[in-house]
């Protein structure tokens, strides 16, 4: 796929790269019987191909499954995990997972949108133990909690710190 191509939605991406292993892995996930909304009926909510990077938006409650599925599909290396605060839009938080495949020499980005100030998300430390520090960092700086994390403590800020510095409602400078 050429770098200057932009595919803006799931249908376009599915049409252009139906063979992509990560896409196939996510589509093969079982449907969620409990979800009553049509959009939530599947793990893969949206897809986008922009500037040579494939972004797959995953339903928040299915991130652990999705991570395990792309891992099994060959994207074996979790390189980065971080968040973006989109205040004041809703859903507020975006969590981005950058995953590398050593065999295919390619990246994908899994993206999860979380609403509310007190967002929680399933931890993927059971899939990649290396997510440990990254999830602690996101918890520390954004206040997103990860369920199932073995040791969810602050990592960069002092333990007794109040607030989460990388949120957009946290000031860049202190009072003068």
């Amino acid at each position, binding site marked *: 796929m050429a770098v200057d191509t932009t595919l803006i939605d799931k249908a376009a991406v599915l049409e252009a790269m139906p063979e992509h292993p990560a896409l196939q892995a996510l589509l093969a996930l079982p449907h969620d019987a409990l979800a009553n909304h049509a959009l939530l009926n599947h793990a893969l909510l949206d897809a986008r191909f*922009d*500037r040579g990077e494939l972004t797959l938006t995953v339903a928040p409650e299915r991130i652990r499954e999705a991570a395990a599925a792309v891992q099994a599909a060959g994207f074996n290396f*979790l390189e980065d995990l*971080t968040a973006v605060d989109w205040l004041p839009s809703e859903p507020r938080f975006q969590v981005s997972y950058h995953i590398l495949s*050593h065999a295919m*020499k*390619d990246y994908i*980005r899994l993206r999860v949108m979380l609403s509310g100030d007190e967002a929680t998300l399933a931890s993927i430390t059971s899939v*990649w133990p*290396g997510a440990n520090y990254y999830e602690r960092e996101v918890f520390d700086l954004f206040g997103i909690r990860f369920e199932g994390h073995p040791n969810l403590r602050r990592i960069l800020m002092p333990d007794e710190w109040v607030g989460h510095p990388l949120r957009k409602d946290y000031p860049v400078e202190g009072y003068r």
Partner: protein
Amino acid sequence: MTETIGTPILEAPLAEGAKDQHMVLNMGPQHPSTHGVLRLVLEIDGEIIVRLYPEIGYLHTGVEKTCEAKFYQQVVPLTDRLDYLSPMANNLCYCLAVEKLLALEIPEKAQWIRVMLTELTRLNSHLVWLGTHAMDIGALTVFLYTFREREDILRIFEAVSGQRMMTSYFRVGGLAMEPPLDLFDRIQAFIKTFPEKIDEYSNLLTGNPIFINRLRGVGYLSATDAIALGVTGPPLRASGVDFDLRRDRPYSSYEKFQFKVPTSTVGDTWARYLVRLEEMRESVKIIQQALDGMPEGPIKADAPKIVLPDREKMKTQMEALIHHFKIVTEGFNVPAGEVYQSIESPRGQMGYYVVSDGTAKPYRVHMRNPSFATLQALETMCQGRLLADVVAVIGSIDIVLGEIDR
């Protein structure tokens, strides 16, 4: 909004039923062999490591938050303060990320100079690693040798950018200024003698029985563990995973250079030492190729609204003066979007995740540092080993706390 999860580290981590025999020992943050301000909490049974917890954050300065309040071009000097031993690699990674957002084409000469200087940075970083690693083991002499050569590299950096360490020489759209006329000759002179110097270090260490005994079989990391824990760079390659972004996902013209990627399947501290030593020899080859085939042409992209004009133009042309004024006071707008750009830094895969909302300031900049992930593997490497081995293992993973804490 008070968030306190867990308890202070010194009370928590003792294993079940082991409280009576085990001792908790604090190492750092002011310990000479922790390479910065790393604090380790060690649970030991006699002299055997049972558990090990790195406590980090002593150098946390909130660089990612600061970036959000700066113009895109003002972020460049922040990046080289993260990994202060390889400033050019940080500059390069950030510039590539923003250039990807802007879809900016960089002239070939600028790309080649970037490759050449990034490889010099790799030598610089590996020299510091080798000197301090050997010093931790007790071989003090090597430090004096490696810093002698490092001084030459720093002088080259000073000639190029005016700064020895915080170079900020790579800018969005190219390079800050034309390199000095004698730069290539100076680098050539350095490269000519450097392979002999590597032999010299090797003579001092590779056959040294004390050094071998302290390193061989220590700090074993399997390929599976390395991948699971996010370890990259020389430690990953020393564990048998043959992956190097310079070769496998080339950026900045690396596809035009021929070099080998040294690997080892042993996975211990000794293997990491050999892999890095070999990497230095390969870097020399890359620099030699860059010197031999250096293309002619401009060093800045033709994008007057993004790249600062040359001083001469700025003083003689009205247009250039206006562009200069606008870039400095208002910055340049970057199209909305998100990119993740990764490069092979001396320590492993470094990635910059830049999110733009269409304004002149980045909405979010995240740095993926190799050291941060590699530090996670420290416990795996040290468990069940002697206390004295911790020092050897920390030296071999070559972490820089500046980039871990950000």
